[in-house]
């Protein structure tokens, strides 16, 4: 088992003919993902390698039965692409695009609330179920199948954490990057709920960063609903207030969103907090000792 993506995933790529879209589609195919369609308006009827390209998401879904979309559309057009996928009934939408305006994402989020689609991202590395399906830009070879679910707000920091897990011979059930933007689709709580329900997942790694209160809300949820062991990490202890640290959502403002407050919330919720990134894998080995 796993969450959200697996061998049954039939992937469609929006923006498949662009530079990034092509490159990462090929990487996903090489990993074993079943890529069934691409969408680039105006290029319907063409092929990207062996993948048929359609003008609209509706056409692609009707012709190929795609059940997941990965979006590489540039930021100015990405909100439109997400809404098109949701309107076509695609159940899982993974938006890689970085730099979508906040007001665009607000519209998207409110629209998605009226549909049954799940959005992961935007501004995220995507989602991978090791050995089965990769929908995103993460390097495949650092992952290995296993019992630990990984949820993170960032990209390369997730790779670091996953790499250290794999070095310790601790495999992953599914790894999800939920993205670094202030307004995103799937949040920590959605993933925690799914990992708690997934029999393959025996423990959970949660990687947060400064800004907002998503980690604190997740901690409250964990206290009430999660029985599996959780190891946490928060980036940004040294970040100054009022400065956006790369991610649009990573900003300490009005005294809220500090790393310390999040670490405190995690400790209070009984989460094993890793303070020294260099020891992440080693600490997980101890913390998950009984379940792995």
């Amino acid at each position, binding site marked *: 088992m796993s969450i959200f993506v697996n061998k049954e995933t039939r992937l469609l790529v929006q923006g498949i003919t662009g530079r*990034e879209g092509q490159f990462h589609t090929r990487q996903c195919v090489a990993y074993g993902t079943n890529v069934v369609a691409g969408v680039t308006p105006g290029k319907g009827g063409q092929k990207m390698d062996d993948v048929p390209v359609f003008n609209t998401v509706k056409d692609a879904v009707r012709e190929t039965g795609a059940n997941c979309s990965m979006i590489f559309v540039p*930021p*100015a057009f990405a909100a439109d692409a997400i809404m098109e996928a949701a309107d076509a009934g695609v159940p899982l939408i993974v938006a890689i695009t970085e730099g*979508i*305006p*906040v*007001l*665009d*994402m*607000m*519209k998207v*989020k*409110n*629209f998605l609330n009226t549909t049954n689609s799940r959005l992961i991202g935007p501004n995220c*590395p995507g989602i991978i179920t090791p050995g089965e399906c990769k929908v995103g*830009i*993460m*390097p495949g070879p*650092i992952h290995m199948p296993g019992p630990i679910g990984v949820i993170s*707000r*960032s*990209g*390369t*920091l*997730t*790779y*670091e954490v996953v*790499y250290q897990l794999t070095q310790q011979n601790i495999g992953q059930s599914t790894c999800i990057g939920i993205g*670094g933007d*202030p*307004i995103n689709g799937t949040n920590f709580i959605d993933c925690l709920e799914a990992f708690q329900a997934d029999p393959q997942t025996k423990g959970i790694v949660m*990687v947060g*960063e*400064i800004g*907002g*209160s*998503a980690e604190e*809300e997740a901690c409250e949820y964990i206290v009430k609903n999660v029985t599996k062991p959780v190891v946490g*990490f928060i*980036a*940004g*202890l*040294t*970040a*100054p207030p*009022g*400065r*956006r*640290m*790369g*991610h*649009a*959502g*990573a900003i300490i403002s*009005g*005294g809220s969103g500090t790393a310390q407050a999040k670490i405190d919330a995690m400790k209070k919720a009984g989460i094993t907090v890793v*303070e*020294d*990134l*260099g020891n992440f894998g080693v600490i997980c080995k101890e913390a998950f000792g009984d379940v792995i």
Partner: protein
Amino acid sequence: MKIHEYQAKELFDRFEVPIPRGSVAFSVDEAVKVAESLGKFPVVIKAQIHAGGRGKGGGVKLANSIEEVKQVADEILGMTLVTHQTGPEGKVVRKILVEEGLDIDKELYLSIIPDRSTAKVVIMASEAGGMDIEEVAAKTPEKIIKVWVDPGFGIQPYHAREVAFRLNVGPELVKQFAVIIPRLYRLFFDYDCSLVEINPLIITKDKKLIALDAKINFDDNALYRHKDILEYRDLDEEDPLEVEASKYNLNYIRLDGNIGNMVNGAGLAMATMDVIKRAGGEPANFLDVGGGASAEMVENGFRIILSDEKVKAVLINIFGGILRCDVLAKGVVEANKKVEVKVPVVIRMEGTNVEEGRRILQESGLNLIVARDIKDAAEKISSIVKE
């Protein structure tokens, strides 16, 4: 992106939000001309810098005659203003706003911001205007009124009435609120703002609602569709190294520490800064070269870090995914040819093409300290700090 108060007030004026009469001045002579055109005293002279707390820092003063205008303008222009938001080094004042003084009956607070958790726009207001609103929110949260607006549905008059009635301002002023709040909302929405704030929003003795102050921040991701706002950018208000970095699309923030660092990805960059701190150093910067950095970007990033004189050592931490380790290595080698590197450089890289990257570094003959992993990198930084 941040803009000055006088620029924010230009936008208020365009959206017919009432502001005091006045104008910006870049010299004492210009300040005198503005004061003369206002035709009455007192006038208020306000330093224009991108930071709050100007009043407490001595950057806002009254003048009761032309002589006083000259004196105050001369005093403020060119001064280094230190506030709780500027940092201890302060900011040099290069322009001032000269405005009519008004008779204030009441000071209120009003702002419009995006709310992350509800994905709606929130209007916040308080009777405790003119004060540090973060303190009000922390100590007396019941004094902050919040009204949420669905961005698809847009602002309605009842949103504005609700704010006004809860502020206890009386029926005549409720009418003014019902006009002004929707105008501010349109400004917020049309220009992709991340903050529109008025503190204080005043009620004058003759019962008029006026924006005595104005602060607007914009969503950087949306600036591509607001070319006119880009003209408001003031490079004097930004750190020169940050301006330089922005030319190469590098995400660089200058900090006060002694250990420079270059990382790919914002989360890993923040975590690397924390690693430096744990190792006994202080990060000198935040630098995310991004997922798809080229050798040229790496080279420029490295050069910018090294041009900060406080930097005593550099830590490069790359987890190669899209950015391959061999590309990184080439960039570092090129940068070393062009700039003289006087400080120790610790490099840790992992991921795509790491063997090729390590080979390039080794064969370059450069004096680089290669770390096996993050733990090893932290130990190497720690021993450099202790020397």
